[in-house]
């Protein structure tokens, strides 16, 4: 039953898919093996360093005993040595003391004699120095008085000099001020004169310019008038040309009566090409005539343009007349 429901193609497809899945898994397994092989030699991340093992052996008692014995031996030797030393010391001190006494006696006598000599010399010396000091003090006083005098003289001269110089200075400044004031006065007068001249000249120029402008304005007005006149004639000419063109292209329908007068509005583009033509009121013609007129305009196709650029307009309204 199942076999018949699943067509051979579908069976083939499922088989292919399973095969592909198997191959894909095989590829991944292969890569996983490669990956594991590649990371085989990694060190563990939190490797603990092995603790250093230290054994303490207590050697205390043995060492202590040996040390005490040595100490007792050393103490005995030291005591014997000390006794011998003291004996020697005593003998040497006795001899020394006797020699010292003799020496002391000699030295005292010597000392007394030298003391007397020295005393005499010192008194002599003292007297000489006193005299010397006195002499120097007097000289010093004289010199100081002299200097004081000179200093005062100097001071007086300096003050005098100072006063004279200040006087001269003030005099000169006054002179300078006066001179400046005169100079400023002179300059102001000069400036005033110059300004007056300039104002005068400017007034003259202004008057002249105004006259010229007036003349120019008159001339322009004249020109404008002439231009207007020319334009008016050109416009008339343009319109009559258009009217003539329309009349020439007009096919008169049989129903038209003389005395037709219709306003025609034409739209054109630069270059004169006609875009549109319509009849606007007032118009006293019948329908056929109206149609014939617009047809005539459209037949022209293009209005004259060259030479009429100045009067060209996008929209032109002209009156079409037929008088029989």
């Amino acid at each position: 039953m199942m076999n018949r429901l699943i067509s051979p193609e579908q069976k083939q497809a499922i088989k292919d898919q399973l095969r592909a899945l198997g191959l894909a898994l095989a590829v991944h397994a292969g890569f996983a093996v490669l990956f594991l092989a590649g990371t085989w030699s990694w060190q563990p991340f939190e490797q603990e360093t092995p603790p250093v093992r230290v054994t303490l052996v207590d050697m205390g008692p043995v060492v202590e005993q040996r040390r005490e014995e040595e100490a007792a031996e050393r103490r005995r030797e030291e005591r014997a040595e000390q006794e011998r030393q003291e004996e020697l010391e005593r003998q040497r001190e006795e001899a020394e003391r006797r020699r010292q006494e003799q020496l002391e006696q000699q030295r005292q006598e010597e000392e007394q004699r030298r003391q007397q000599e020295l005393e005499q010399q010192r008194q002599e010396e003292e007297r000489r120095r006193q005299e010397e000091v006195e002499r120097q003090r007097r000289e010093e006083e004289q010199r100081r008085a002299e200097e004081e005098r000179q200093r005062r003289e100097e001071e007086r001269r300096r003050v005098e000099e100072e006063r004279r110089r200040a006087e001269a200075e003030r005099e000169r400044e006054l002179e300078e001020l006066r001179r400046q004031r005169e100079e400023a006065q002179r300059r102001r007068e000069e400036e005033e004169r110059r300004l007056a001249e300039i104002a005068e000249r400017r007034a003259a120029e202004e008057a002249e310019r105004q006259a010229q402008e007036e003349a120019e304005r008159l001339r322009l007005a004249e020109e404008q008038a002439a231009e207007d006149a020319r334009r008016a004639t050109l416009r008339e000419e343009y319109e009559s040309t258009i009217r003539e063109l329309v009349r020439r292209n007009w096919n008169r329908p049989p129903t038209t009566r003389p005395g037709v007068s219709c306003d025609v509005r034409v739209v054109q583009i630069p270059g004169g090409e006609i875009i549109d033509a319509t009849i606007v009121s007032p118009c006293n013609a019948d329908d056929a005539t109206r149609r014939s007129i617009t047809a005539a305009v459209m037949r022209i196709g293009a209005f004259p343009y060259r030479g009429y650029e100045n009067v060209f307009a996008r929209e032109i309204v002209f009156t079409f007349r037929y008088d029989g």
Partner: protein
Amino acid sequence: MNGELQVWDLIMEAGLLVQGVMALLLLASITSWMVIFQKRQILARAESRARKFEENFWSGADLTKLYDKVAGDRAGREGLEGIFESGFREFSRLREEKRLGADALTTGAQRAMRVTLTREMDRLEHRLSFLATVGSVSPYVGLFGTVWGIMNSFRGLAGAHQATIAMVAPGISEALIATAMGLFAAIPAVIAFNKFSNQVERLEVRYDNFKEEFANILHRQARRLEERGAA
């Protein structure tokens, strides 16, 4: 045994999200390899069949006989055979209606062949886009897992008083596995996608050429029939 345990432990100790990303990438990788193998088989088969059929066709065999043979083989109605079969069937069906001209006959056959060609291209291109998606997206997915894992390990570092590289290194290492997996999934997918799309394009050109040439042959035959009918 130590190293193996290390890597496996890293994967197992990773955060839930990183594990999810890894599982996703593994799945994508397996699926893309499946597609690769399937496509390879299909394309290889299509190419060899096309070669065989073209040899058969151009050896000057009788077209009617060839058609009977192809139409009888149900499994063989794909690739060039399919195009040939649909074109020829449409042509003979239209020929039954005597009124149609040579151009109309050929146009009808060509239309039928174009439809078959489009269907055939669709079949060949089926699931190639999956490869493209895996190739372009899985590096990003892996990177996402890595970034997440690194974020977590740095967050753990924030509470510690004595920060050492040894505290974050395992976390970063486990996070980087996600990137490695993403690249592992993406590289074969991109290579296979480029290869297969190129192959499919070449097959399409081949089919298209055959379609045009066969249309020419049909057109010639239709003209001959028309002339004979007129005479």
